[in-house]
């Protein structure tokens, strides 16, 4: 346990600049999405027990706290997808640091607007919009 904490701490405090933050966020969003996908498969399994049981599960997802978590989920998937694409491009085609910096900004230029639009669609119904 102590070892795990110290290797985790080294991973967080390493001063690697934007690429390092991108990596940490990639990890966190990856773990988050993998956890949700696992839960999501279990909750979908309930559909096999009929309409009433499944409706109860669906009700869990409609409360405001879950809607907020839904925004995090959507951001996580979008960030993980486009940051992953950035990593793939760097792996195969763009080794220069100049290109890497550009890719970092392009990635956010895609991820932020998409996340904001998705957040609007998700949260607006809570406020009756």
């Amino acid at each position, binding site marked *: 346990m102590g*070892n*795990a904490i110290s290797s985790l701490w080294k991973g967080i405090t390493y001063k690697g600049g934007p690429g390092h933050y991108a990596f940490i966020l990639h990890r966190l969003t990856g773990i988050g999405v993998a956890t949700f*996908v696992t839960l999501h498969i279990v909750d979908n399994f309930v*559909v096999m027990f009929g*309409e009433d049981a499944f409706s109860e599960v669906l009700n869990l997802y409609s409360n405001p706290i879950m809607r907020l978590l839904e925004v995090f989920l959507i951001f996580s998937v979008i960030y993980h*997808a486009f940051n992953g694409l950035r990593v*793939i491009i760097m792996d195969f085609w763009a*080794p220069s640091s100049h290109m890497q910096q550009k890719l970092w900004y392009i990635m956010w230029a895609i991820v932020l607007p998409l996340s904001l639009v*998705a957040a609007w669609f998700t949260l607006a119904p809570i406020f009756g919009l």
Partner: protein
Amino acid sequence: MEIVNKEYGLPKEKFKGGFETWAWFFMRISGVLLLLIAVLHLLIMHVFIRVENIEYSTVVDRWTGSWGPFWKAYDIALLVFALMHGFNGLRWVVDDYIKRPGWNAFVKALLLVVFIIVIGMGAYTVIGFTG
């Protein structure tokens, strides 16, 4: 395949294969695929249909309607690729932070058990659902 890094003058490496190299390669391939099918899944469920409108009948229409076989195949692909990508990612996280051999093997075995159970539950749901 050749991985070339001209900028830093690193030696060219030939693609040699082996489990970890294939796992690395699989993450790139499945990642691009998931960028398409997982993001589209999100767009359909969260923006076009919206989560608050999803009901039992939504699932019935999706899996038993005239496009049923297409959506079942789509969801099986999503299930298999998302879980393989996700659990391989978790395996890498475990390898990075849990260094003690016993614990490392134990947590990874646990991940494998969860992976098998969940992929089984998912496949049973998608394939077995008749409405």
